[in-house]
């Protein structure tokens, strides 16, 4: 059963093409990401990494080709199982840490971790009632990554998750990513840093 279940979870891109200002960023891009796999997108600045992630999120229509989740086009079931952390933190500065996470919970489906557990995992315990505007950039980043933990999801789409994190923060996030993948999750991510995921099945696509 578990083997079958794992096989069913699948993110497929078929012949994706993205054109921006008459420039072809990528064309005829195909990949499959299965459970327990990480897809690492590489490439120069402006090579279309973020555009590809935004296509996977459904924010942008591909100029050709299609994205499938478990064999179906992107639908509500997909959005219930994915989380996206982009360039912007997506947290409100005038709300407290806890209020921000409660909003995420209200928008999605509660997952394995409670808010307290998630804050502990990203080393923000004790910051529940602190306004986000008084957090540092790295702490905001870790808060937006805590969103990944409190909701029930399979697919993480991460755009430069290590931005503004220190060495210690990067370690935390790498541990969380390894944990997620080992529990049958999928990750699609971009990164300028070298990602240390040695024991994990990692696909790499170079867009440039």
């Amino acid at each position: 059963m578990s083997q079958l279940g794992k096989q069913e979870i699948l993110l497929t891109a078929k012949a994706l093409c993205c054109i921006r200002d008459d420039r072809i960023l990528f064309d005829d891009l195909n990949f499959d990401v299965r459970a327990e796999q990480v897809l690492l997108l590489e490439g120069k600045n402006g090579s279309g990494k973020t555009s590809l992630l935004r296509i996977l999120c459904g924010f942008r229509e591909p100029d050709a080709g299609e994205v499938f989740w478990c064999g179906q086009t992107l639908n509500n079931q997909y959005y219930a199982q994915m989380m996206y952390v982009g360039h912007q933190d997506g947290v409100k500065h005038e709300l407290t840490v806890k209020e921000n996470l409660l909003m995420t919970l209200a928008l999605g489906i509660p997952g394995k971790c409670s808010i307290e557990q998630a804050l502990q995992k990203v080393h923000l315990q004790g910051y529940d009632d602190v306004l986000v505007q008084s957090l540092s950039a790295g702490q905001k980043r870790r808060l937006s990554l805590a969103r990944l933990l409190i909701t029930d999801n399979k697919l993480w789409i991460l755009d430069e998750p290590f931005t503004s994190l220190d060495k210690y923060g990067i370690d935390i996030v790498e541990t969380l990513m390894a944990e997620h993948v080992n529990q049958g999750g999928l990750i699609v991510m971009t990164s300028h840093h070298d990602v240390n995921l040695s024991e994990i099945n990692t696909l790499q696509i170079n867009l440039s």
Partner: protein
Amino acid sequence: MSLFQAFIAIIRRDLLLAFRRRAEMMNPLFFFIIVVSLFPLGVGAQPHLLQTIAPGIIWVSALLAAMLSLDGLFRSDFDDGSLEQILLSPHPTSVLILGKIFAHWLVTGLPLILVAPLLAEFLGMPGDALWVLIKTLLLGTPVLSLIGAIGVALTVGLRRGGMILSLLVLPLYVPVLIFASNAVEMASGGLAVDAQMNILAAILCLALVLAPLPASAALKMSMS
């Protein structure tokens, strides 16, 4: 969580945000008061003329105040990425957007209604017309927020969308303005205003059902 809980959570969040930025939120209200009080200064000491044009003055000022406040509806969510998270929710976006519009109306529309009787008195509007004015504002200002949401969703991706927003939205406000100010005018003359009220109520129902859909579609377009 259920859709209803998400809807309530969005309203609560936006009200909380408005409370924490309350100085900013008072601006449309002060704008409304100042524009209305400019007219007696411009027109001069002509109480009869002011009384005649009072419905128009109050409604046009309310319209401009509502428009001025529109940009705040999605701007901060767009800038900090919260809007992305709302659009990625498995719940129907249009319902979540309706929650945002409702919270926005509570913060910007409702204060106008509360302060309108004072301004009506100030312009010498008769007592009967005052109640009708409040009723037209109650039916009309939510429509302004609903229609405005479509315009602001279309222009939120543009850096300087303010002028385009007014060109897009103000013409669509015309029916509300016509029926609402006409109703108040008729009421000052002691005439029945049921027809205008029914039409305003119908416009509100229509906008409640139809506005959130194009607004959420336009937001998705603004994202790409």
